[in-house]
């Protein structure tokens, strides 16, 4: 009997190993979902058809976080009011690792909608080890709503209450420094008082969601005290490496010069908001940063994408609240920059950029591919524009989409139907 039991041990171990290969059976998924039909696809794009900021945010979290287990769940959740500057600031500094947080909006009355609350429950965030296992970052969320989260979802909440976006950026900078034991020297700087300040900075905000660097606000013609305080914290002879989002009409040369006292200043800017997004996608700055006699680390800022084989997030420039949570697609999955477009037209600057990064036949076994996310429903970005974007992302020539991606081998045009008679 004892011998028999001993023999069972390798058998049991073997079965355990065998079954550990995976068990993923279950009921069929995806029947009759409200927006599945509207989530139109092409070969190289997928649409996430939010018709309002709250729904858009839900679609994004459902795309990025399957939440079937800890490793594909969010680390935390960010909750903000529908305020462009506040949401923009929060997305800049909170999203990236180690927090790993998508963004949700409160409704117009400052409440959490039932759909958003359910999505928060579905996500079951893992918690942020570096911050007391916090699961929710509530930025200017009414205390009653925070209590609802704590009481009903049992999530640990960190509150950030600061209605001035400039001061909020400074507060989040301090918090991030405690989280990472460092102040990132690369600092993106946008203009809070310019009507297009956020749009010009949208692409760079995507970089921060992707890489987690610093962010500060300025005014078009002056530098606020809170921002000066932030920049002084950057250590070393070179101080900060600042990237201004927008040309001199957005952030004046006077401000650029004043910022120069705190370090190295560069602009990531185009003629309009579309061009700024395209410039951002291709922008790269690298070089000396910080170190002592040894251990020098370089600065490295910007996507620097100038060749085929990448992912892009296409969003309507006027859909600011819808675009802000969408940069989570640059944080997980295929990662990639935001490119701003119109409702039904590809701006020339973006089209030129896409031509530069267009794939081409490169291997007999597969090809280089691009991929694009279309943010918003048909009324935000038309189906025709989605198809046009697809042509730009495809490995097929724009003029003649009929060529094969399999190189230049001569093909018989007759089909097998004709040859196999």
């Amino acid at each position, binding site marked *: 009997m004892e011998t028999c039991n001993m023999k069972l041990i390798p058998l049991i171990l073997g079965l355990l190993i065998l079954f*550990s290969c995976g068990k993923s059976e*279950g009921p069929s998924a995806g029947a009759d979902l409200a927006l599945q039909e509207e989530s139109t696809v092409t070969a190289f794009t997928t649409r996430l058809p939010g018709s309002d900021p709250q729904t858009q945010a839900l679609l994004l979290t459902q795309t990025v976080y399957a939440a079937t287990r800890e*490793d594909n769940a969010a680390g935390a959740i960010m909750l903000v009011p529908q305020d462009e500057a506040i949401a923009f600031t929060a997305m800049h500094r909170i999203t990236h690792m180690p927090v790993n947080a998508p963004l949700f909006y409160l409704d117009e009355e400052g409440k959490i909608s039932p759909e958003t609350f359910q999505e928060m429950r579905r996500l079951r965030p893992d918690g942020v080890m570096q911050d007391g296992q916090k699961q929710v970052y509530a930025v200017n969320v009414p205390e009653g709503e925070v209590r609802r989260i704590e009481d009903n979802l049992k999530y640990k909440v960190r509150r950030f209450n600061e209605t001035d976006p400039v001061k909020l950026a400074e507060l989040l900078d301090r918090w991030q*420094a405690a989280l990472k034991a460092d102040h990132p020297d690369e600092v993106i700087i946008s203009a809070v008082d310019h009507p297009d300040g956020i749009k010009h900075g949208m692409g760079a905000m995507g970089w921060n969601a992707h890489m987690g660097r610093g962010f500060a606000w300025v005014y078009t013609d002056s530098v606020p005290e809170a921002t000066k305080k932030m920049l002084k914290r950057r250590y070393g002879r070179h101080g900060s490496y600042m990237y201004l989002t927008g040309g001199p009409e957005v952030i004046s040369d006077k401000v650029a010069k004043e910022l120069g006292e705190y370090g190295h200043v560069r602009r990531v800017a185009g003629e309009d908001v579309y061009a700024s997004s395209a410039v951002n996608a291709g922008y790269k700055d690298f070089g000396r940063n910080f170190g002592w006699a040894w251990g020098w680390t370089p600065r490295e800022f910007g996507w620097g994408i100038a060749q085929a084989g990448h992912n892009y997030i296409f969003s309507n420039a006027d859909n600011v609240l819808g675009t802000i949570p969408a940069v989570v697609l640059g944080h997980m999955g295929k990662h990639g920059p935001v490119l701003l477009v119109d409702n039904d037209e590809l701006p020339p600057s973006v089209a030129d950029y896409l031509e530069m990064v267009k794939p081409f036949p490169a291997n007999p*076994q597969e090809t280089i*591919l691009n991929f694009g996310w279309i943010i918003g429903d048909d009324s935000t970005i038309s189906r025709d524009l989605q198809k046009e974007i697809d042509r730009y992302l495809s490995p097929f020539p724009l003029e003649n989409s009929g060529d094969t991606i399999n190189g230049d081998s001569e*093909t018989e045009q007759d089909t*097998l139907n004709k040859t196999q008679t």
Partner: protein
Amino acid sequence: MLRWTYPVLAVFILVVVGFGLGLTLKEGVEVAGFVKPDQDPERGRLMMHMKNTTRISGNVQEIHDRLKEAIPYEAAQTADYVPGITNWKDFVKSSLTIDSTATHVIIISAGGEDALAWALPAIFFAKYNNSPLVFADELAANRNLLQGRKAFIIGPEEFITDRDLEGLEVHERITASTPAGLAVKIARYRDSETGFGWGREYHRRTGYFQYVITTPFEALQGLAALPLAGSNAAAILYANEKGGLPGITDAYMWSQRPDWFVTPSEGPFRHFWVVSERLSYAAQGRMDLSIEKASYPDLGHVALGPLEAGIIIFIVLGIAGGIFIMVHSSYMLPGVMLPMKISWTLGSMLLPVLGVILYFSAYRRPVYHEHKMMRWLRPQNIQSAAATMMGFGYGAPAMIAVAWLFAYFGFPIFYGETFNETVFWLGAGMPVMMLGMYLGAILLAAFLVQFPMKQSMMEMENGEMLWNALKVTFLSMTAVSLGMMTFTWWMMMTHLPMMPQEDDIMWFGTIWIASFVGFIVAWPLNWVMIRKKLKNGNM
């Protein structure tokens, strides 16, 4: 007399570290799908696309119509009519274009949907590659296509018999025990001479591979998605009839996880297209995770990269060495004091192989007695190692246990405006944790090990003895910490792109290796202390 403090500290360490390793194992069990999530992750979903997985829902006609509308490229064009059980053969013929220069020809069976299930992976390759393709029942009529080309016979003999192939000059059969196995085989296979097969092996790290997932029972849906082979170079993979992923498909998918070197925005990426009404949400979520980009030093939290594999071997060797020393010393070294046995056991767990070597070097020595206690006559290097082990054996595991508790409950951080900005890092999580583990380990080791040990060996006032215990522990732990903390910081804050969580094997791996480094740094420092007779290394 046995002091209760030594085993109590040992049990505390083993419980905490064991619980942590248990949680890490639980992660693995979750990967295998045995543990269902507490919440319903499907509830409230508005659509079924994910970041690495696009789901094209609908029946055969809907999939066909959607893709015809969505993919206009000529290379992706297929027949205008909807494929069905009776016309799928004609659909395939009408949808392929052949390359006259191809040096291979694909032979598939004709028949019902089961024949299509076997043939579909090859049809997808033929569509992308413009390969000549012939049905087994039309070989005689297509001798011109077969001539001078190597023939690849797709599927088992049950569908294409050897008799069917009589007269073929050069041919090779590609088959497997199931359609899922065959799909994986064709995805991996490459005949470099004739160019047949996708050749998508693990080592081809730069490929932008895409796949269409369906089940053998929905092969017609898969065929309707044929445009994706032409446009996206998509290969076929199969799920099973219960909506799950067969082991062979699952293992292949995980092997396809791409990695990145500088930022995750680098190419390549991989993508799945789901055209199945049977595939479960759990399977889709798993697929989506399997090809999530991961940093090159490891393969992320789930997939087992070389670094994780090395770390697991390192930890297992350490634990095995510790267990061996515990058993061996219990039976073979009755004269060694229990605190020393515990110390060697715990310490050796963190010193794979080296711990056992040092143990034998320390105790295969002539014995003598001093103050009625057994001593071993050792050279100074080994005395230093034994003296290091006395502090390290309790201190390093205690530091790991304290660090894990910090990680489990989360680091406390402080970032108040009034906090002195030049020392902001004192409020940062990692330094707070390091300080906590250092001080925690000193206090635990001083009060629970050094103090009672000195009490049993020396005649001294309690206060003086405690001060003495604290001094010795401080010196030992500082020496160990020099190496351990430096390595932990370098690995977690600099080398690894993401700091590992408390239930990642990388967390344990980092701290395990850091302990090893700590011992190596403390060893020569203890050599000096032995030389100056501050420590005894013959116990």
